[in-house]
């Protein structure tokens, strides 16, 4: 009886729900991209900071790192600011359109590791 219940619960939970995009698994490490351009929007937030960057081809949403780590590494909110030019090296998402996860970013000649 209890086993049937467990199986039913697993089945019910796995059906029909949408997949989110966290972790490194849903980024294509075989196709690294470098996006260079001005920061159009910045969210210095948990669990990961994100910026929107106007690249040469399109506008990218660039997922960065946890803010605690970024602050520790000097990439504070006033560094990751709207209007600054950023070079973001990372991997495109295999799930979300126009989203990438940055391995490292360079702002004002300084490089910050995100991983």
């Amino acid at each position: 009886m209890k086993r049937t219940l467990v199986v039913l619960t697993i089945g019910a939970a796995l059906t029909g729900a949408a997949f989110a995009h966290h972790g490194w698994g849903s980024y294509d490490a075989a196709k690294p991209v470098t996006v260079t351009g001005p920061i159009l929007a910045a969210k210095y937030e948990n669990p990961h900071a994100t910026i929107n960057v106007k690249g040469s081809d399109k506008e990218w949403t660039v997922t960065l790192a946890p803010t605690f780590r970024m602050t520790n590494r000097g990439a504070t909110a006033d560094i990751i600011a709207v209007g600054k030019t950023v070079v973001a090296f990372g991997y495109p998402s295999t799930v979300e359109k126009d989203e990438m996860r940055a391995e490292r970013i360079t702002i004002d000649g300084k490089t910050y590791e995100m991983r």
Partner: protein
Amino acid sequence: MTDAAPAIFVALEASAWGNTIRQSTWLYMAANVGHILSLVVFASGIAVIDLRMAGMLAATAPGQILKVFRRVVGIGFLGLLVTGSILFTAEASHVITNPMFQFKLALIALGLLNITWFEFFTAPKVRDYPPLKALPPEAKTAGIVSLAIWFVVAAVGRSIAYF
């Protein structure tokens, strides 16, 4: 923010409290660390009770084990609830639609149901058993089922970030 989620979770995420958590330097991280610490406390209490019910540590008095470690489980669960709701609030609309989180909630419900059943029907029976007296099969079942459920809850919880 995703509008695919029920409005209440969208509102929770968008609330001032949600904003505070996301903007915080240490609160989110502290909740993350605290969630793991609470899990360690919770799981240690669960493990002792469940293993005793399953037949191990037979030389101990079941009543005393229950009395002491029930408290450990309670403290751990409270910590999990508080830290978990902080982590949840920050991304409520995303997390609630995450299949692993839904699976985790269902398993927690099942685990709590098992505990409730055990506390109402099994614990009163075995509470006064002396050490070394064999426990009834229902106690063994409750212990093993409980261990299995909470192990999977922990695994599924960590998996939320990958789905």
